[in-house]
């Protein structure tokens, strides 16, 4: 890590978040938020500098992740969805400090991960692991599979003999053969490579795995195999997952709770049923309505809301609510004041000044406001 984060040093040693630090500390919990959180993320910020000119002076910054807070509970899968550029991958990497966060805290157990020194961070990574999107880029092409899967064990001082045995077991467990250990990554298909990446992430028996788009490079028939495997492994090894993906159907299938991101901020966090049945943020509703469903009759009946425009640049995010320029039901306040993430019902957090109430659709709201919204008429 060469970049030195310019962090606010004032409360470096404090993980006491104060009474009003985040709605997640309010004490109210839904049925899915069981027990003590395994991972507490508070006010996490990551900004990348934009440099220009001969002296590479900083002329601005890309606000990739802004003030993100959430909890991850034991044995749960928290899905993080959003479109490209919403900061979901940056968020995932900042949690493990593969990217140094600009500010904020990530508390694992009772230790602030953002304060850990190099040595300690290495130890922590045995509990916090990651699986990457691209199974072609994330495996060293010059190493045989047994070395790829065994490398974390070597770093953490597991004896050669034990490592060899465990690599064989891991390969078996993810649906490969122990003798595949002698082969190189190019001899495997995309789905098999992703299995290898998963075996590597399991090597140190972690508690938390951040899965960054683990199936989006795979064909549907292979995707289902990997999703089922992840499901089995979670039960077997008591894992908590942070499942980052852009595909809402996949996230709905795998996640207990889901966080929706838009332009660096959390728009909505709740359990998967509530998110799909009673989405309260206008962005969540439009996102859900845009997803095509593999059912011709339902597709014909659906009223699809078409959002205007593209996602703005995170280098220059809109003032107030970052979604307001595209929001069909935005009011004056939305362009001025940034909405805080607030708990509207137990376990359901929304950052919107005018959240949709249960049963209310975005279409209803546009009618009440006398607005027009583009609806797909196909």
């Amino acid at each position, binding site marked *: 890590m060469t970049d030195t984060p310019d962090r606010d040093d004032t409360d470096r040693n404090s993980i006491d978040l104060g009474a009003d630090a985040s709605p997640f500390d309010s004490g109210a919990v839904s049925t899915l938020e069981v027990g003590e959180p395994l991972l507490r993320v508070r006010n996490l910020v990551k900004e990348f500098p934009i440099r220009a000119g001969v002296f590479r002076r900083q002329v601005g910054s890309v606000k990739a992740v802004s003030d993100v807070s959430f909890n991850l509970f034991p044995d749960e899968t928290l899905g993080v969805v959003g479109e490209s550029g919403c900061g979901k991958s940056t968020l995932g990497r900042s949690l493990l400090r593969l990217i140094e966060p600009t500010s904020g805290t990530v508390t694992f157990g009772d230790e602030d991960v953002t304060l850990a020194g190099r040595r300690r961070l290495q130890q922590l990574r045995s509990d916090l692991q990651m699986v990457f999107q691209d199974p072609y880029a994330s495996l060293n092409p010059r190493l045989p599979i047994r070395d790829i899967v065994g490398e974390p064990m070597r770093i953490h001082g597991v004896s050669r003999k034990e490592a060899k045995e465990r690599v064989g077991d891991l390969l078996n467990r993810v649906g490969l053969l122990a003798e595949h250990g002698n082969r190189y990554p190019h001899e495997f298909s995309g789905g098999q490579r992703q299995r290898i990446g998963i075996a590597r992430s399991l090597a140190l028996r972690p508690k938390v795995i951040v899965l960054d788009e683990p199936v989006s490079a795979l064909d549907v028939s292979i995707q289902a195999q990997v999703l089922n495997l992840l499901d089995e492994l979670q039960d077997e090894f008591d894992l908590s997952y942070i499942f980052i993906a852009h595909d809402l159907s996949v996230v709905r299938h795998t996640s207990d709770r889901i966080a929706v991101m838009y332009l660096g901020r959390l728009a909505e966090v709740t359990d998967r049923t509530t998110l799909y049945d009673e989405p309260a943020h206008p962005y969540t509703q439009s996102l859900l309505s*845009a997803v095509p469903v593999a059912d011709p009759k339902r597709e014909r009946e659906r009223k699809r809301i078409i959002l205007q425009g*593209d996602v703005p640049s995170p280098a220059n995010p809109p003032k107030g609510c970052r979604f307001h320029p595209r929001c069909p039901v935005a009011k004056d306040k939305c362009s001025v004041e940034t909405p805080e993430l607030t708990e509207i019902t137990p376990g359901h957090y929304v950052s919107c000044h005018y959240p949709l109430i249960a049963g209310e659709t975005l279409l209803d709201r546009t009618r009440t406001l006398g607005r027009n919204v583009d609806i797909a008429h196909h």
Partner: protein
Amino acid sequence: MTYSNGSTPPPLLAVDDLSVGFHNREGVVRAVSNVSFEINPGEVLAVVGESGSGKSVTALALMQLHPRNTEITGDVIFDGMDLLSMEDEEMRSIRGRDIAMIFQDPMTAMNPVFSVGDQIVESIVLHSDINKKEAWNKAVDLLASVGVPEPKRRASQYPHEYSGGMRQRAMIAMAIANDPKLLIADEPTTALDVTVQAQVMEVLYEVQEQTGSAMMLITHDLGLVAGAADRVQVMYASRLMETGGVDDVFYRSRNPYTRALLDSIPDLETVKETLNSIPGNPPSLAHPPPGCAFAPRCSMAIPDCAEGVPDLVALDEPGHASRCIRTADIEVAVEATV
């Protein structure tokens, strides 16, 4: 949606027994094997399949855009013309005029050193007599019609100044510049975010409705197929596995591969406990298994499946056909569960 109303007009495109093979060091890799299908005027035919199933190669072969070391056999009759026997010159006059293509990645499909307007003008001037000034005005109108805001200003911008969704709109504008009879869209929204995908698909539908052109939509996304297609064609390992009306394929599929594919996708509206995944991997096209290519992964496979490639057999519904020797058994299974 108009299709199979008894009186059949001549098809716009008739593909008969098309095979495409690529030569490499180990011999010939058959990317498309004995594919036959038709597209009627104004209809949307979706071609679905996983990577390597041959869906894109089929389209490239129709457009004669395949690489040189390619062996093509079969017949492709478009609007009464035999495309495969055409000289390059003749083919060039059809490409971009009668048949236009929309590619997945507009950044690589467009020329980065010409403005978007100039590129649309080029495709107009190439196929008609109007002068450049008129063509420019037409280009601006086209950009407006696909929903590019401030089309006058945007026409003189370069592709890199467009966002992904806007670039894809510009590609559509270019494709419809000469009122093609057939649009081939190869994964037109795969590179886009889902809210932008919805915008672009809406533009495609509108354009297709207005111009009355037929569309061949190549995609891996069954959701997109469900919303867009009149007819569907499922490909696996270079062959057509099933073809039929969109409802026939989604609700009355008689093919184990189609069914397994539909079962393996997570659904947005209902949560399944576990997904019915398809075991194994697609076969290598250089060394295809004997018989049915899906048999090694198929839960219904019997020893006979390895005995030879099954025929594509017509079923009760008009235009519905499946390539599986156990088609009859699947039919029983369907009715038993209803």
